[in-house]
Structures are given as structure tokens and as C-alpha cells.
């Protein structure tokens, strides 16, 4: 679509109607993962390793199996052998084989007639462990003499002589790095560390599964992507994918953490072993924190060169990230995001993916980007302070724009970083005067966004209303945005569209609601599918008028003759076309399948004001601004919601949240009381600016908006704290004790 068409005014897009699932969600009617039951249903419970690293020498469940009401007990012996590659990692993480690799690693599971009996049975299973040395911290794990988590874990990329816990190595760059540093007036470097955080969705993982011995089964599950669940369950259980029907429940948050399997294969295996009875498993909060997929922890070195008037000359990063005992930290994404907002004449990136005795990292909102932003954007702030330069001006001088080649390769099409920086600079928050112990911090953030495999269908109901069927679960209002785009495409009222989220048998493969893709990808596909049906309606009307189909066009819900030459016909409404469908060729439906590309890169700029209590080290966020390019805000309220929610998750990561391990390698804070996510009284309002620089590759200009907002808070708050009290923290979270220590000693926490 040509760019000038993107500038047009819309009738529905950009409005703020009530979401279609609003009633269900304010009345308690909406059905989430744990909200269903079935006749004959059993309850599952999981036995988990109490050790960070151990060899499992024996499992004896004789006593447990004799308890009244116990119907099935499974261990790794109930899963197929001969699996390798990443499927083996998935299976190993689902249920331990010879080794338990982290505190909370699943060892066995029970299905029983009640939850109480299942839990009692878990306690009766006797496991003998040979406890092995463990390693938790990423800098410890990369040492050559660190406890070895797995033999032969490294892939081809790992240099000789590296620690055995290095799973993979990545290196890329562009330009003359040393020459760039030589040209700089100031070269600055620093080490930064971030601790693992959890997505912290309020709904624990839950599923109800049924599997027969003939390999046919079904599952109800809270997930961001039910085709992923189907694919992964089928691969670790050796099932044929099409025989497993997976229906997504409403989902109580995911943020990337519900894009993979944990309990789901266990429920299926328990069902099969209990003769095909449905089995429901609901995780406790402690299980969620110990045994799902928090993000990686990171240790990062950054070096940046700059001229005295604020032009970047060269930059290098070395990121070391652990993503648990199976590899898979987002170090590659972190490297891609590190310098992406800037035109860097020379940039060099090195990354290590490192094993540690922790749960396997899953995605968490812009995976890798928050850590990278913390390191790079903090150092840029230090440079701005040293050179007495305005932090927004420096970013404006170096900001990438249309046609620039990014630091990691791809060339940018139309992007909105400059517009976003300017909008932030013009906002009143940037000029409000501050008092004692108060400071202001600025940071930018980037996420590349994702399109991915997408399959949708639309169908015309007999009264001219429209059903849209998509495969991307609605986590934050995507039904509303998809309905708006559908209404816009047809020119029919928003209320005449109903958006359904279908089970796996109803559509082709869909990637999850991840990568900021639901509104972008399902929206683009729905636009194509709707236009198929519009074309079909125009053809039917052309037949009725006995004119050429090209002489009929569609406008505002009507088929119309295209000008005087086409003939003098009264427009025919979608309602009338629908009412005559059976006479004109049968049902009218369209579908579209594609690997969606042209996602439109996303940039954001945050401004944080804080006050630091110099006596206690407590940080109070006084005001907070998010400016971000949305491309086009389909439903602005839910775009703002993404900005605000992302920012607050970043604020939590910066100030409170961390995985705390004891000397025994066990998680010490597996409860919301101790793993403290931000609460309402911690926060001010989160101000937002929606910048709209339309994505030229999307019919409505959409860019994904979900993820970028979590990255800038980490550095923006650290920069604000430094501005407030002259304490530079290079380690997260900035808990009061750490802040106080930095104020008193100048140590940065690394």
C-alpha cells in the first residue's frame, strides 16, 4: 500500500469503543485456565526437586500408589526415549531424567481423585538424590573451574578454552572499532549486572488435559499460543499433532512466559496412564516462581566513544547471560537491541549464553532488550553528564532514521525515533523543576517486533454481521483492535463484528500472542481475508447487475457501481448481500495465511523523575512519561495500557524484583510477599504520548507496541537516581540497601 494512503482519516480506527469481552471480564464469567472441570476429572500434582543440582538415583512410588484415590503416577520413564536437540531440552525441563538441574525441577507427577490426595501422594514418593555442586551466578558459571552442569553442552560456536558452561557464543559487528575509539574525545566503559525477574502474571499456569491410548487427545490451557503447546506436547510425547486439539482459555497475563510447556505434557501423560480420564493441573504461585520461565540474569561490559559535541564514534559490548540449565538466554536479542537506536560508525558485539542451575528462561517482554538498555543507556547518561550535554539532544544527534542501516544489520524503513525523542523533549515533564534529592533520568528503548505465522478466517453471518476467527489469544484487548480493523475494512459498525479465538483444529498454524504481533499480524491477515469476501460480494453484485465485476466497488458497507459508465444501480448493502447468500452461491467467507513480515521497528523514550531518601535509600517515583511510536494506534486506550504496563514492569525490575538464591542454590523468595512486584501505592500515574509514524508495510500503519516499554525504565531510573543523589548504580535491582551503600561508598553494586 502506498504511503499516502496511510495518511487517510479513519472512521473506526483510533476510536476507543468498549472491548467485546468487557462484560465477561468484569462479571467473573470469563473462563481462565483453572475455571473448568469435567466429569470424571482427576487432579494432578507435581513432585519437584528440593536441590539445585542432583543425580536422581532412585524413585520409589510404591507407598504413594497405594493411597486411596491415586490413579496414576508418572516419571520420566513414561516419556519416549530417543529424543534429541531442543525437543530433548523441552522434555528434560518438563520432567527430569537422570539429573535434577534446578530447585523446583519436576521429578514425578500424580493424578488422584482430589487435590489433597494428589498432594499427599507426592509427599509419599521416595526419591534418593546424590547432591551435586551447583552454580547460580552468571559470572561464577562462566569461570573455567565452575561446577559443570552438563557435559557437551557447548555448540560449534564456542571458542576453545571457554568454561564448559558456555552453551553458545555469538560475535558480530561493523566498522573500525579501534579507529572509532581513537576519534572519540571521551571513551567510557562500565560493567553492569541485572538479576533475573519473573513475568509475574497473576494467573498461575493451569490446564485440563485428556489423552487416550489411541493418541487422540484434547486440552484446555491458559497460554499465549496453543499451536505452540500442541507442537511441543506432541513432540515430547511422540503424538501426531493433528490428533491433539488445544483450546485456549482466557489468559491471565503471559508477557512471554506462557509461550512454552511446563505442566501440559504431564497432564496428558497422567490422563493416558489413568485410562483417559481428564486431568487438571494448577500451579501454585511458588511453583510458578520456582519452575516456570523467568528471564535471564546478565553481566555486561560496555565501552562507548563520543566526540565532545555528542556524536557517537564507536561502541562495543560483551554480554554474558544465563538462561537456566538448558541454555536459551536472549543474549542474541540483547546484542541486537544494544545500539539499535543509534547511528554508530563502528559497533562490536560479543555474547555468551551460559548454563546455570536455574529454571529454563522463557521470553519476557522484549527479551534481552531491558538488560541491554540498562547497560548502554546508563553509560550514555554517564557520558552526557561528563560532557554536560542534554541527554535527549545527544540521542537526537545519533538517532537512526529511515534508510539507516541498523547496528545489527537490517536497514530501517520509516521509523519514528526522532519524532519520539522530540515529543518527549516537548512534554511538560521534561521541564518541571525538581527539589532536593530529586532527579530526572532519560532513556531510549528498542524492540524489533515480530510478525510470524498467522492464519485467520472471516465469515459473513446471514444478517450481514461478521465473524472473525483468529488464533492469537486476547491478553490485553486484541479482540477490540481486530474488530476495529475489520469494521474499518468493511465499513460496518464496530458492534457488528465478533472476534473469536479458535482452537487448533479451526485454523492453520498460528504463532502465539508474542513479539508484539497479535494486532499487527492478525490484523493484517484479517484485512486480507475481509478483502477476499469484499471481492466476492462485488462479484455477486456484478452478476446481479449483469455488469463487469471491475465495475463494482466497495464503500462504507455497500457495493456500488463504479461511476456512470457502470450503470445506474442503487448501492446494495452488506446486509442485503448476506440475506441473499443462499441464492447467489452459498456462504461467503474468506481466509488468509501468511508468515507476516514488515513488522515496523519500535522505539520508545522514557523520562523518569525520582526522589531518593538519603537516609534509607528508598526511591520514590514522582512522575513518569512514556513516549513511543505506535505506527498507528488502533485502540488508543489499549496502546496506552501497553505503554503503562510495560513501564511498570520495568520499574519493578529496576527497583524491587529479583530472584534471591540461598547458598544451597534454592530460591528464597518464591512468593509474592517476597518477590515484590509494584503495587498501586508504589506508583504515580504513568503519562503517555502515542507517537504515530505509520508502518509502511501494514495496511493501517500498525507497529507492535507491547514490548518496547519494559526496556527504558531500567536505565531511566538509574539515571534519575544518579541525577538525584550522585549515586551511580550499575547493578539491579536498586533496592534501598544497595542505594544506601552506593550513596555512602560510591560502589556501584557490581
Amino acid at each position, binding site marked *: 500500500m502506498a504511503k499516502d494512503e496511510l495518511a487517510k482519516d479513519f472512521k473506526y480506527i483510533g476510536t476507543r469503543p*468498549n472491548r467485546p469481552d468487557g462484560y465477561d471480564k*468484569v462479571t467473573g464469567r470469563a473462563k481462565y485456565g483453572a475455571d473448568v472441570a469435567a466429569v470424571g476429572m482427576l487432579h494432578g500434582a507435581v513432585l519437584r526437586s528440593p536441590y539445585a543440582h542432583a543425580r536422581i538415583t532412585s524413585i520409589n512410588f510404591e507407598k504413594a500408589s497405594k493411597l486411596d484415590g491415586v490413579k496414576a503416577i508418572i516419571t520420566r520413564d513414561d516419556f519416549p526415549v530417543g529424543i534429541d536437540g531442543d525437543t530433548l531440552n523441552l522434555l528434560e525441563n518438563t520432567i527430569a531424567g537422570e539429573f535434577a538441574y534446578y530447585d523446583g525441577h519436576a521429578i514425578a507427577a500424580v493424578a488422584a481423585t482430589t487435590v*489433597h490426595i494428589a498432594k499427599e501422594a507426592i509427599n509419599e514418593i521416595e526419591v534418593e538424590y546424590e547432591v551435586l555442586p551447583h552454580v547460580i551466578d552468571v559470572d561464577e558459571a562462566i569461570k573455567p573451574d565452575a561446577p559443570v552442569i552438563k557435559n557437551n553442552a557447548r555448540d560449534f560456536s564456542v571458542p576453545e578454552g571457554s568454561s564448559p558452561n558456555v552453551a553458545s557464543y555469538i560475535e558480530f559487528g561493523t566498522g573500525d572499532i579501534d579507529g572509532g575509539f581513537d576519534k572519540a574525545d571521551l571513551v567510557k566503559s562500565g560493567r553492569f549486572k541485572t538479576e533475573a525477574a519473573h513475568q*509475574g502474571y*497473576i494467573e498461575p499456569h493451569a490446564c485440563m488435559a485428556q489423552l487416550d491410548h489411541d493418541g487422540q487427545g484434547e486440552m484446555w490451557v491458559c497460554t499465549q499460543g496453543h499451536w505452540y503447546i500442541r507442537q511441543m506436547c506432541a513432540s515430547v510425547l511422540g503424538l501426531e499433532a493433528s490428533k491433539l486439539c488445544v483450546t485456549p482459555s482466557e489468559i491471565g497475563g503471559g508477557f512471554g512466559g506462557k509461550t512454552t510447556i511446563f505442566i501440559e505434557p504431564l497432564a496428558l501423560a497422567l490422563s493416558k496412564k489413568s485410562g483417559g480420564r481428564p486431568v487438571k493441573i494448577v500451579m501454585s*504461585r511458588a511453583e510458578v516462581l520456582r519452575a516456570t520461565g523467568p528471564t535471564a540474569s546478565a553481566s555486561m561490559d560496555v565501552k562507548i566513544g563520543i566526540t565532545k559535541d555528542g556524536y557517537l564514534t564507536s561502541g562495543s559490548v560483551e554480554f554474558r547471560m544465563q538462561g537456566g540449565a538448558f541454555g536459551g538466554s536472549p543474549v542474541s536479542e540483547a546484542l541486537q537491541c544494544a545500539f539499535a537506536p543509534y547511528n554508530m560508525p563502528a559497533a562490536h558485539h560479543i555474547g555468551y549464553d551460559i548454563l546455570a542451575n536455574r529454571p529454563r528462561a522463557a521470553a519476557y517482554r522484549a527479551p534481552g532488550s531491558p538488560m541491554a538498555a540498562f547497560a548502554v543507556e546508563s553509560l550514555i547518561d554517564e557520558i552526557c553528564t561528563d560532557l554536560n550535554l542534554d541527554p535527549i539532544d545527544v540521542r537526537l544527534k545519533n538517532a537512526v532514521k529511515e534508510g539507516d542501516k541498523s547496528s545489527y544489520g537490517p536497514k530501517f524503513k520509516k521509523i519514528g525515533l526522532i519524532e519520539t525523542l522530540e515529543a518527549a523533549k516537548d512534554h511538560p515533564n521534561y521541564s518541571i523543576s525538581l527539589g532536593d534529592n530529586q532527579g530526572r533520568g532519560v532513556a531510549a528503548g528498542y524492540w524489533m517486533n515480530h510478525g510470524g505465522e498467522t492464519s485467520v478466517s472471516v465469515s459473513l453471518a446471514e444478517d450481514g454481521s461478521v465473524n472473525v476467527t483468529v488464533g492469537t489469544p486476547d491478553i490485553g484487548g486484541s479482540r477490540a483492535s481486530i474488530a476495529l480493523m475489520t469494521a474499518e475494512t468493511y465499513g460496518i459498525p464496530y458492534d457488528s463484528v465478533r472476534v473469536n479465538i479458535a482452537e487448533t483444529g479451526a485454523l492453520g498454524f498460528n504463532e502465539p500472542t508474542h513479539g508484539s504481533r497479535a494486532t499487527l499480524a492478525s490484523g493484517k491477515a484479517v484485512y486480507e481475508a475481509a478483502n477476499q469476501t469484499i471481492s466476492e460480494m462485488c462479484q455477486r453484485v456484478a452478476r446481479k447487475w449483469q455488469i463487469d465485476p471491475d465495475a463494482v466497488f466497495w464503500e462504507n458497507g455497500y457495493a456500488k457501481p463504479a461511476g456512470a459508465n457502470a450503470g445506474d444501480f442503487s448501492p446494495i448493502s452488506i446486509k442485503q448481500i448476506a440475506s441473499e447468500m443462499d441464492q447467489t452461491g452459498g456462504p461467503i467467507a474468506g481466509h488468509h495465511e501468511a508468515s507476516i513480515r514488515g513488522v515496523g521497528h519500535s522505539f520508545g523514550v522514557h523520562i523518569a523523575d525520582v526522589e531518593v531518601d538519603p537516609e534509607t535509600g528508598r526511591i520514590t517515583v514522582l512522575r513518569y512519561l512514556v513516549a513511543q511510536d505506535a505506527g498507528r494506534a488502533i485502540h488508543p*486506550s489499549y496502546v496506552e495500557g501497553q505503554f503503562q504496563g510495560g513501564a511498570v514492569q520495568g520499574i519493578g525490575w529496576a527497583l524491587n524484583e529479583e530472584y534471591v538464591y540461598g547458598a544451597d542454590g534454592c530460591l528464597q523468595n518464591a*512468593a509474592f510477599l517476597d518477590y515484590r512486584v509494584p503495587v498501586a*501505592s508504589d506508583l504515580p500515574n504513568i503519562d503517555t504520548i502515542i507517537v504515530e509514524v505509520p508502518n509502511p508495510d501494514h495496511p493501517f500503519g500498525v507497529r507492535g507496541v507491547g514490548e518496547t516499554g519494559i526496556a527504558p525504565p531500567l536505565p531511566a531510573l538509574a539515571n534519575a537516581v544518579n541525577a538525584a543523589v550522585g549515586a551511580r548504580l550499575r547493578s539491579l535491582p536498586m533496592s534501598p540497601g544497595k542505594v544506601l551503600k552506593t550513596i555512602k561508598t560510591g560502589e556501584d553494586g557490581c
Partner: protein
Amino acid sequence: MTKIHVKTNINGDKVEFLTDPRETLLDCLRNHIGLTGSKEGCGTGDCGACSCIFDGNLVSSCLVLGVEAEGKSIETIEGMAGEKELHPLQKKFIEMAALQCGFCTPGILIAAKALLDRNNDPTESEVRYWLAGNLCRCTGYDKIIKAVMETAKDIRETA
């Protein structure tokens, strides 16, 4: 374990159920009575997703035993809307997009109603501290706080 017979009142209806004495009120609401609108986010009283009104007091129903419901009066999210229309808070939450995933929403609505029933002119700080026991991970609370403040204003204006 032998089950105990409990007679109680939920959302104005007389209800009887049998409960294992280890079960929480939340377990009973969800598993014995079929009221799954109250959610379990933590089971330890930290998240507020199971908030209910128990004899006029706001409680985390995961911290109340089912047997304690004997002779009491309980209000849950399923009883919040009137017969003809939603409660003003429910309406405002939809209008102002004060929910994303919606999982914390029942508990937050119950808690917010408990506040406005006591005080229909709260300051923003009072709303933020009253709701500090209700975790929301999606919204950053901004739109929730604004929706509660707007509802309070509407209630005052129509009073």
C-alpha cells in the same frame, strides 16, 4: 477426611455445601458452588485476586476457611452487577480500559466497591493505598485508579 456441612448466604442466596475442613473459602466458592469469578493468584493473601466481602469486611478468600462461612453473608464478583445493568465500577472499568487480561479485575472491583461503599470521595492516594493489596501486572494501575476516581465522582454527582 470427613466433610463438614456448611450453611451460608452468597450474593443473597442461601447456599449449602460439604467441605473438607482443609479447604479455603475460595476453594469452596470455585469448586463446590461453581462461582469461579474469584481467582487464585497466590494462595497466600498477597495478590487480592480472590477478594470477597465476608460479613461486610473485605477479605482474601484464600485466607478464610470454607467452614468459617457457616452462618455468614458473602458477596462475590458474581453478585456485583444489578439485574438490569452493571455496577457503575464495572461499567467504568470497561469504558476506561481499566483491564487488560482481566484476571485481577474481579478482586479489584470487589475491593474498589468496598472502598466506595465506605468513602465516595477518596483522594488518589487513598485509592492507591486501599488497592495496594490487589496486584495487577498488566496495566500499571494508572487506568484502574482513574476509573475508580471517575466512578466515585459519578456516584457523588448522582447522590
